[in-house]
């Protein structure tokens, strides 16, 4: 049981100051911009919720939002099952474990624009292995022109880049399952599927939840990689929310609408994460409850 002690605030203070300065001041700046209009010279005019109304009703925002949601959805649908499958196939001990971990973690530590560069080069029809290979098989592939090809390239890149994170998380959950559980399953003659469904899935539920959360957040915020590979094209086909946002804020300098859009964008992410967080806390309490229940018996 934790002790109640408000002096603990002193321990939290450094973090609070550090994160507070780099989070609250910029956030307030964004809020400021979203409610005002400017004609240069540092003169600002109060416009109320005008920018928000404009953004929420604009076709451009709706389209970018749809693209981002579709991308995140597809990413989760592919990476989570694939990650679980590969984690299950990993060896449990021996030299193979280290080799697998090091090789798999490699894409995670490549700077994001280098990831973009790697795939841009890899998928090019003239000098890339993938592009050249596909066209020599007679497949009409060109990610700079064809919308479907561009999407497939970006999805493949994201799978390449991030599936390992799901694998690592699931693997850490799997190795923490005590051997006794498997022995018990063997004695009961449980099928492979039953072991997976009733032992492995419940035990890795927590890390799986975290994997889904992290993958959702990061794919929803993705900027650098698609920017390098497709630059948002062909046309606007891969202009996700963050690309659109940076274009609006730094390219066209439309600060008001960009700020309003930022806040809406942030609120969407916050809402989804709050739901996840609540589910996770409830799950923890349920687990704790179960354990207390066992103890009293």
């Amino acid at each position, binding site marked *: 049981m934790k002790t109640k002690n408000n002096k603990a605030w002193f321990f939290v203070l450094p973090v609070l100051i550090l994160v507070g300065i780099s989070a609250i001041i910029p956030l307030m700046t964004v809020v400021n911009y979203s409610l005002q209009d400017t004609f240069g010279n540092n003169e600002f005019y109060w416009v109320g919720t005008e920018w928000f109304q404009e953004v929420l009703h604009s076709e451009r925002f709706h389209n970018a939002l749809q693209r981002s949601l579709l991308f995140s959805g597809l990413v989760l649908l592919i990476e989570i099952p694939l990650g679980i499958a590969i984690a299950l196939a990993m060896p449990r001990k021996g030299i193979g474990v280290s080799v697998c971990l090091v090789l798999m973690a490699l894409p995670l*530590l490549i700077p994001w624009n280098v990831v973009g560069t790697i795939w841009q080069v890899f998928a090019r029809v003239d000098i890339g292995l993938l592009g050249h290979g596909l066209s020599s098989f007679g497949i009409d592939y060109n990610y700079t022109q064809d919308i479907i090809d561009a999407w497939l390239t970006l999805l493949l890149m994201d799978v390449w880049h991030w599936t390992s994170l799901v694998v690592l998380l699931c693997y850490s959950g799997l190795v923490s399952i005590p051997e006794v559980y498997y022995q018990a399953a063997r004695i009961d003659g449980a099928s492979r599927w039953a072991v997976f469904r009733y032992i492995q899935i419940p035990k890795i539920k927590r890390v799986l939840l975290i994997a889904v959360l992290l993958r959702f957040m990061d794919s929803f915020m993705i900027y650098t990689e698609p920017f390098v590979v497709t630059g948002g094209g062909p046309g606007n086909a891969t202009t996700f929310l*963050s690309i659109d946002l940076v274009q609006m804020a730094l390219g066209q300098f439309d600060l008001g609408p960009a700020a309003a859009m930022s806040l809406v964008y942030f609120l969407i992410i916050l809402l989804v994460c709050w739901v996840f967080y609540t589910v996770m806390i409830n799950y923890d309490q349920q687990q704790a409850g179960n354990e207390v229940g066992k103890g009293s018996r």
Partner: protein
Amino acid sequence: MKSDNKLGKRIVLSTYIGFLMLPIYWLLNMSFKTNQEILSTFSLWPQDFTFDNYLTIFTDPSWYNGYINSLTYVLMNTVIAISVSLPAAYAFSRYRFLGDKHLFFWLLTNRMAPPAVFVLPFFQLYSAFGLIDTHIAVALAHCLFNVPLAVWILEGSMSAIPKEIDETAYIDGYSFPRFFIKIFSPMIASGIGVAAFFCFMFSWVELLIARTLTVTDAKPISAVMTRTVSASGLDWGVLAAAGILTIIPGALVIYFVRHHIAKGFALGRV
């Protein structure tokens, strides 16, 4: 039956790892080719093997300074993030205090903030303090998403240590700082390692904020890549070599923490 199963697993694993390595191999392959060869012939390995691309990088200060800049702010960020997160994580794992749950969630929301949202305000904030184009500006800005993560991981590994350890140490007459450094820190060493690994990783791979806050003196290598490449008319060979060199620090870090990754993930609650 059993061996079939094992063979299947092997095939799944090696296909996946092959898929991961293929694009990296292609980049490595290109980095040893001359530009002419890259554009004119298609070959699975370099026909005209050359180190010129790497030489360009190691002799041109605007290239190799990029690596030094990146490593400087990444290391600064890791040190700052871990040292402020340790006491905070201890407070979250050991005490209940006014608003603790809200504070924890607020911290996590910062990990969820899209960098695109913060780019412009960050630029204005750091210009106001005259910190643009310094390493410390990038290190501090990256704390926004690294500190919450570090607190989260450290809190998990600290909660795995029974509270009785603390109490026994106090009874034995240890003061808090001495207890924390001498007894507690070694016990959560792998948690600290994993937290440092993640701070390093997320700071090393981030580009948008790092690029916005720097002009020349502290420009990260990944930003140097985008600029120089477009200026010199797409020098594919040098681009590939620079890309390969950005993979190396990450590979080294993974190699050092390889025993802790799996354990740390399970132990910390990430």
